[in-house]
C-alpha cells in the first residue's frame, strides 16, 4: 500500500505540490464479468497442459517493449489468440482471460517484464496453473542479448532457436514446443523471482504458464 503513496509523493515533488491528473482518454475496461465463476477443475487444467493442441494457447505480449511487439508481429498470420498486457493487465485478466479459462482450460505463453509474469503467475493460481517454463532475456550495452534459463545459464538449444541480437522476439514462438516439453518435468520455474527487474540490467522474461 505504501508504494502508491510513494509514487504520489513523487508526482507531488516533481510538479510542485499538486497531484497531476492526466486527462487523456483511452480505451475502457474490456468485457463484462459475471459475478461468480465456476472455476474449472484442477485436473482439467492439467489435461490442458498435457495437450499440445495450440488452440488452447494464448500468447501474451507487452506492447511497451520492442521484442514483445516483434513476438506479436510474428504471430500475425497465425490462428492463435494474442493479447496485449501493456494497457491494463488487471482488465485483461478479469475481463478476458479469467472468464475464458473458467470456460476452457488453456496455456499462456508470454513475453514481458517481470511484473507481467509476477502478476499473471499469482492470478493463475485460481486455476491451479503454474509457471512451467521461464527464460530471462538480458540486454547488454552493446545491443546483444543473453538468454538465461532458470539455472542462470545459457542454453545451446535456446541460442540456436533465438538470435543473440535484437529481433529474437520474432522467433520466440519456436520455443513453445520446448516449453511444452519442460512443462511436464518440473516446477522450478515457478515463483523464481519477485516482480522487480534484474539488478542494474534491462531485461525481459518469457514464460509458459499451464
Amino acid at each position, binding site marked *: *500500500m505504501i508504494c502508491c503513496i510513494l509514487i504520489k509523493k513523487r508526482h507531488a515533488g516533481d510538479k510542485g505540490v499538486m*497531484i497531476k491528473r492526466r486527462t487523456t482518454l483511452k*480505451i*475502457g475496461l474490456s468485457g463484462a*464479468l459475471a459475478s*461468480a465463476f465456476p472455476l474449472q477443475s*484442477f485436473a482439467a487444467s492439467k489435461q490442458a497442459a498435457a495437450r499440445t493442441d495450440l488452440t488452447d494457447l494464448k500468447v501474451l505480449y507487452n506492447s511497451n517493449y520492442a521484442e514483445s511487439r516483434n513476438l506479436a508481429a510474428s504471430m500475425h498470420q497465425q490462428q492463435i489468440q494474442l493479447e496485449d498486457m501493456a494497457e491494463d493487465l488487471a482488465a485483461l485478466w*478479469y475481463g478476458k482471460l479469467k472468464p475464458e479459462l473458467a470456460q476452457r482450460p488453456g496455456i499462456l505463453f508470454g513475453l514481458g517484464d517481470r511484473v507481467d509474469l509476477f502478476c499473471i503467475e499469482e492470478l493463475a*493460481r485460481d486455476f491451479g496453473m503454474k509457471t512451467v517454463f521461464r527464460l530471462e532475456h538480458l540486454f547488454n550495452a552493446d545491443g546483444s542479448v543473453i538468454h538465461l534459463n532458470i539455472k542462470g545459464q545459457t542454453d545451446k538449444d535456446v541460442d540456436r532457436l533465438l538470435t543473440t541480437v535484437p529481433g529474437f522476439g520474432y522467433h520466440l514462438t519456436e520455443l513453445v514446443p520446448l516449453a511444452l516439453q519442460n512443462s511436464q518435468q518440473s516446477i522450478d520455474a515457478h515463483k523464481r523471482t519477485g516482480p*522487480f527487474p534484474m539488478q542494474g540490467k534491462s531485461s525481459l522474461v518469457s514464460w509458459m504458464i499451464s
Partner: protein
Amino acid sequence: MALPPNLSQSEFDAALAEFRNAVGNDWVFSSDEDVALYRDSYSIYWGEEEERIASAAVAPANVEEVQQIVRIANRYSIPVYPISTGRNLTYGGAAPTLTGSVVIDLKRMNRIIEVNDKRNYALVEPGVSYFDLFNYIRENNLNVMIDVPDPGWGSPMGNSLDHGVGYTFGPYRDHFGSHIGLEIVSAEGELIRTGAGAIPGSDAWQDFHYGVGPSIDGLFAQSNFGIVTKMGVKLMPMPEAFKNVTITVPRYQDFQALIDEVNYLEDSYLVGMPFYNSPAGGGLFDPAPMGELMQNGWPSLDQLEAFVRAQGRPAWSVSFHLYGPQEIVQGTWTAIQRRFRDKITGVAFEEEELHNLPIPEEDIPALPDKAFLGIPNLEIFHIVNRNPINRNDPPDGHADMFTMAPRTAEGAHTAARVLAEAYQEMGFPPATGPFSTPITFYSRAFVIAVLIPTWRDAAKNEASRALYAHCLDKIAEVGMGTYRTAPAFQDLAVSKYNFNDGSLLKFQEKLKDSIDPNGIISPGRYGIWPANMRNNRG
C-alpha cells in the same frame, strides 16, 4: 512435502482421503507441485527451513463442505489455514502461519450475494475479489462506490480480516471497520451469524451490526477463532462529484497546526484521505540532498527551518479529495480555506477541476490515482518496479513495517527518528528522516512506513529479518507498535502489546483454548497459539 505436526504419512493420507470425499478429488491438492502454488512469493525465509509451507490445500465449494473439512481436521488434529483470495503479499501471501497446515482455499465460494444501493451494502463470499465486486456494480449500474487496497486482486473479505486498508473516505478505508455482519464456521464446525443475522429471517443483517449482547465480530480478524464464509461490506453511496485539493504551509514548525486542522476536517467527515507530503523534503523517491543537514545527528528546528528556506519550497503539504454534490464540495472548499487562513500564516491553496462521478468507463485507464476513487487495479506493481530507489539492487519483495504513531507532528517525527536510528544501528542507510510524512490509512492514527526488502537470498534475508526485528524493538521503546505483519514477525509484534504482563494475549489464548480446543484453526496467527502448541512461540 511438509506433514502436519505430529501426524504420520499414513494418517495424513487417510485424512486427505476424507477431504477428497468431502470436496471431490479435483479440489484436494497434495502433490509438491500443487502445494508450491501456495508459497509466499515475498517470504523473508524463502528456501530456508523456517519458510512457512503448507502440507496440502483443499478448496470447498460451499459452507457445508467447509464444515466437513473442519470436522475432519478436528478428528485428525490437523491445523488448517483459511484464505479468501490468498494474495496477502508482504503479510504472508497464501502460505500458512504454521508449516504443515492444510490451506483451506475459499476461491470457489465466490458469489456476490447482494449489492444494495439503497441501503448501501454488499454481501459477499470469500472468493469475491475487488475486481469482481467493482465490475458487478458497474454492470448493474449500481450507485455505490467501493474502497480498494492498492492491488485490487485481493478480496473484501481476506483484506478486511487482515485489517486491510484503502484510500477513500475515513469510515470506509478501514475495511474491517466497515464490515457489517459475519457468517462464521466455528472451529468445531458450527455455523454462526453475527449482529441482526442471528435472528432467523432477519432482513437487517447488513443494517444492524450489534444485535444484543457482546459483539464478537472483532474476534475473527487477525486471529484464528473461525472461518468466515459471508461478510457484509458497508458501501459509500456514489458521490456526485469529487475535487482534489492541496494545502501547503511554509515552515517546518507549521506541521502541528496543519495536522490539527486536518484532524478536525477528517473527524468531522468533511474530507477524504489526507495525503501528507513534504515539498521541501522532496519525498522518498527524490529526497532533497540532506547530507550536511544530517551530519551531526537529528537536526535542530533552526537547522530544519534554514534548510526549508534554502529549498525555496513549502515545508509541508496535504492533499485530499472532497466528495459530494458539487455545491457541497465547493462550499466545503471555501470553508476549509477560510479556516486555514485564520490559523496559519503563509498557507497556500491549489485545486484541481471538479469531476463528476462515476468516472466514465473510457476515462478509467488514464486515471493516475484509481484507488482514491475506489477503482481496483494492479498498477502498483509497475510503480514499484520502476522506482528510482530500487534501481541498483532490486529485491524480490518487501516486508512492510508500519509504525502506528499518535496523530501529532511529534508522533510522526519520533517514529521517523527511531526508525532512522534502527536502520543506522543495523548498518543500513536510513529510510526515514525529518521530512518523513505520515500515512493516514486509519483516519485516527498515523502510519510511518518503511519497506524492508525480501530476497531469494538467505544471507540477505537474514539481514532484513534482523532489521525488521530491530525496528519493532526500537519503536516499542517509545511506546509504538505495528498494525499488521508477516507470520515471521507476528509473535514479536504481538509481544510488544504487553501491558500488565501481556494480559491481552493471555485473554485471547484463554478464548482460543475454549473455542478451538484442538487448536486446528490457523495456529500462531497473530501470536495466538493453542495450548498444545505454545512452545512454538517464536
